[in-house]
């Protein structure tokens, strides 16, 4: 699973890099100023708590407490769904404010990046529900908690990708969008030692 996560690092890394590279290039249409920080910070908090639930589910299973494990597994899946709900709401909100992948560059890069992340979260939720039902028909028990551990690794990975997206794209992006384009770029150029 770590190999898969290593590869996914490249996957999301490229998505985020493309978004950063294209920052400030959109000519027309809404850009970072459309981002609604309070709601997204709540959804970030929800995703963090789902990571906590995931870990509790895993430790419950390892200690053989099936009831606890099932409860936290369901909790993780539900929190995940709440996060997806926020995303859907945010996309709908953007759509009627005129931001779709078609309108401008920011729309394309931002929505497709968060879209791919949302799809990963959805796959995670599906996986969690399958595990949840598997605990009932005896396929998942204390013995093979490794299955749940792998799902846990995947879920935490999806969470830390969101941490990066939230930090870099939402906060740094939305923080007085215009004048930061040069700074982020210069910072990168300075690091790379290019004049």
């Amino acid at each position: 699973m770590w190999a898969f996560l290593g590869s996914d690092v490249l996957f999301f890394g490229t998505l985020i890099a493309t978004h950063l590279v294209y920052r400030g290039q959109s000519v027309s249409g809404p850009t970072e100023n459309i981002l609604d920080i309070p709601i997204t910070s709540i959804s970030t908090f929800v995703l963090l708590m789902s990571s906590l639930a995931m870990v509790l589910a895993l430790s419950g299973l390892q200690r053989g407490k099936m009831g606890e494990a099932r409860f936290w597994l369901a909790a993780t899946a539900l929190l995940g769904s709440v996060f997806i709900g926020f995303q859907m709401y945010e996309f709908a909100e953007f759509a009627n404010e005129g931001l779709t992948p078609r309108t401008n560059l920011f729309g394309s890069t931002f929505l497709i990046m968060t879209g791919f992340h949302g799809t990963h979260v959805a796959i995670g939720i599906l996986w969690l529900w399958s595990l949840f039902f598997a605990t009932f028909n005896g396929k998942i028990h204390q013995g093979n908690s490794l299955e749940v551990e792998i799902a846990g690794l995947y879920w935490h990975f999806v969470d830390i990708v969101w941490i990066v997206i939230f930090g870099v794209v939402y906060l740094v992006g939305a923080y007085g969008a215009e004048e930061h384009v040069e700074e982020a770029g210069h910072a990168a150029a300075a690091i790379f030692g290019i004049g």
Partner: protein
Amino acid sequence: MAHIAESHANHPGPRLYITIALILGALTGIEVAAFFLEMSSWIVVWILLLLSLAKFLMVVFFFMHLRMDDNRFALLFFAPMIVMVSIAVALLALFQNITR
């Protein structure tokens, strides 16, 4: 997969997880607060970046118990991380001189 099994023993108990989660929540709160404070943009940008890095590392090391497993997994995860970050920095630098 033998060595995975015995690393189960030293998994932190639920109490530790909850404290970590609270810390993460607090960090997110600080981030959002910093965002609304009107400090000079340069500091805020660095604060936000550092906070997300801190959260990132905490989750990786504790929730994904990278610290407890043997470091081959760490290599499997951080090697691509280094490659990706250097490529991203190079791309940002290369795209600086877009002459419109």
